């Protein structure tokens, strides 16, 4: 069917003026067959497998973006959670393996490799423990490796012993990377109900239910949604949802087309489309500004949760119609440092940590890229993780915590992480202690919601 003049114009406008892009194509690679009793062989196997599968990822994705005229911003790799192949290796060896991953990522030209991970939501194996202990060094001695730890699920409850350890791990990572504003913490996520096919960093890993290799796509486009809404300043909220739905439908279709072409050319199966609205620091590419366009003076004020719930749901509905294989996190991301509107909200005092927590009940992930005062105690960080995990566990959704206690910085200071990670105003944590609760340890039992069989 012939394409109409105005439709061509719309697509061009979305790309050139409204920051429509494919946020990431992420290749998931299983490393399960890389195990060996000889550590040198493990390192060789891991490096060779990654490079042989993903060696062409970047050039192929770049060729496809050229042909279709839609930018693919990031090319990334996710791998089997490394704790699953660590076996009896030591902490030093685990760090060495992280460096091998870093080298493989560099060789393939991807910007991040995710999956330096462990799933410990119920209990911890010896290898899981080794991995957890190695995280601060692994993140400070590599550039492209991302790490995540699952500490809770709706079906298992929350492993509070692991949550307790994570507070210290985040503090130590912050300390080891204090020369760069504790940036190591920006590469670490604590998850409740993680998904196995998330293409977005820092939380991507290639789950146990996945095949040898798979290509998944994360689309984005807050700028496109924002501009679409600007054309309907007087629409009622039902119509607002409709505008978002239609816009996301188009974005998703473009993303799926490009993803399938890349997958076909790389000869790996297409996995899923993650249709998350992910902001960037580019002008107008902000989730907060969409909420403000819906009718809030400043993000974080009363009404924010309702607006976000409406938006998140409309994104899912539009995307679900556009692609048969919707997966990952699919919804809206609210990373503070990567969203100019969120940064402004905090500086203006309308957006607080408490409100951000509440927002995570109705959007796709959790507390993301939030800079905290450097002297926040480990137990407070653990308690923040526990709160988020509880929200995820009870609401049967993914929640995550990626906070950066920036060494030497206090509430009101500004930190620059640079690049995609952006910049963030420091938010102060509450001065009251959560130490006793965290020190109790143990496991928060699975909620009634788990008993669904």
């Amino acid at each position, binding site marked *: 069917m012939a394409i*109409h003049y105005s439709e061509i114009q719309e697509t061009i406008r979305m790309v050139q003026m409204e920051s429509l892009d494919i946020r990431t194509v992420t290749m998931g690679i299983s490393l399960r067959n890389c195990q060996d009793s000889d550590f040198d062989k493990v390192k060789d196997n891991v490096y060779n497998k990654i490079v042989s599968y993903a060696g062409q990822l970047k050039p192929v994705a770049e060729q496809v973006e050229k042909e279709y005229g839609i930018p693919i911003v990031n090319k990334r790799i996710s791998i089997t959670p490394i704790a699953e192949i660590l076996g009896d290796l030591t902490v030093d060896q685990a760090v060495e393996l992280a460096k091998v991953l870093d080298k493989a990522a560099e060789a393939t030209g991807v910007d991040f490799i995710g999956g330096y991970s462990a799933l410990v939501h119920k209990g911890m194996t010896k290898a899981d423990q080794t991995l957890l202990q190695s995280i601060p060094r692994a993140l400070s001695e590599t550039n492209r490796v991302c790490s995540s730890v699952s500490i809770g699920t709706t079906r298992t409850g929350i492993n509070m012993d692991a949550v307790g350890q994570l507070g210290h791990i985040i503090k130590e990572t912050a300390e080891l990377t204090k020369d760069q504003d504790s940036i190591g913490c920006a590469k670490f996520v604590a998850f409740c109900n993680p998904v196995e096919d998330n293409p977005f960093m820092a939380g991507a890993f290639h789950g146990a239910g996945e095949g040898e290799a798979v290509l998944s796509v994360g689309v984005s486009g807050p700028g496109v949604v924002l501009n679409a809404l600007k054309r309907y300043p007087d629409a009622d909220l039902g119509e607002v949802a409709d505008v978002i739905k239609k816009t996301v439908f188009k974005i998703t279709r473009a993303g799926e087309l490009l993803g399938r072409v890349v997958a076909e050319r790389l000869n790996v199966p297409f996995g899923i489309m993650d249709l998350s609205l992910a902001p960037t620091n580019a002008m107008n590419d902000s989730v907060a500004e969409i909420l403000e366009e819906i009718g809030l003076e400043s993000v974080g004020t009363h009404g924010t949760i309702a607006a976000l719930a409406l938006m998140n749901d409309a994104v899912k509905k539009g995307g679900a119609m556009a692609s048969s294989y919707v997966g990952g996190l699919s919804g809206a991301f609210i990373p503070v440092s990567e969203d100019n509107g969120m940064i402004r909200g905090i500086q203006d005092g309308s957006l607080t940590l408490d409100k951000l927590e509440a927002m995570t009940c109705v959007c796709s992930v959790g507390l993301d890229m939030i800079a905290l005062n450097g002297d926040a105690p480990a137990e407070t960080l653990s308690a923040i993780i526990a709160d988020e995990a509880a929200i995820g566990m009870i609401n049967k959704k993914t929640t995550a915590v990626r906070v950066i206690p920036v060494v030497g910085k206090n509430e009101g200071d500004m930190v620059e992480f640079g690049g995609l990670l952006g910049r963030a105003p420091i938010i102060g944590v509450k001065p009251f202690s959560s130490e006793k609760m965290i020190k109790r340890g143990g496991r928060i039992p699975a909620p009634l919601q788990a008993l669904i069989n």
Partner: protein
Amino acid sequence: MQKRAVVTVVGKDQVGIISKVTTVLAEHKMNIHDISQTILQDYFTMMMIVEMDNKDRLEDLLEAFERVEDDMNLTISVQLEDVFQAMHRI
């Protein structure tokens, strides 16, 4: 099915835009299937559907268009038609 691409040209109206752009296409042996053009507030916009049987020539074509863009201060983009089909047709 035959691969087709959409070429769009936007810029300040001036003499010779169509001539220069279509010359580049002819030099690359690309057939034009459809062409439409308007002027909106002094701005020239043109869209063409062209045959794109050999994607290997895309690189050369883009380079040639870059020179025209610089010469005449235009924005020219080339995109495979599939992306428009995906976005605007169910």
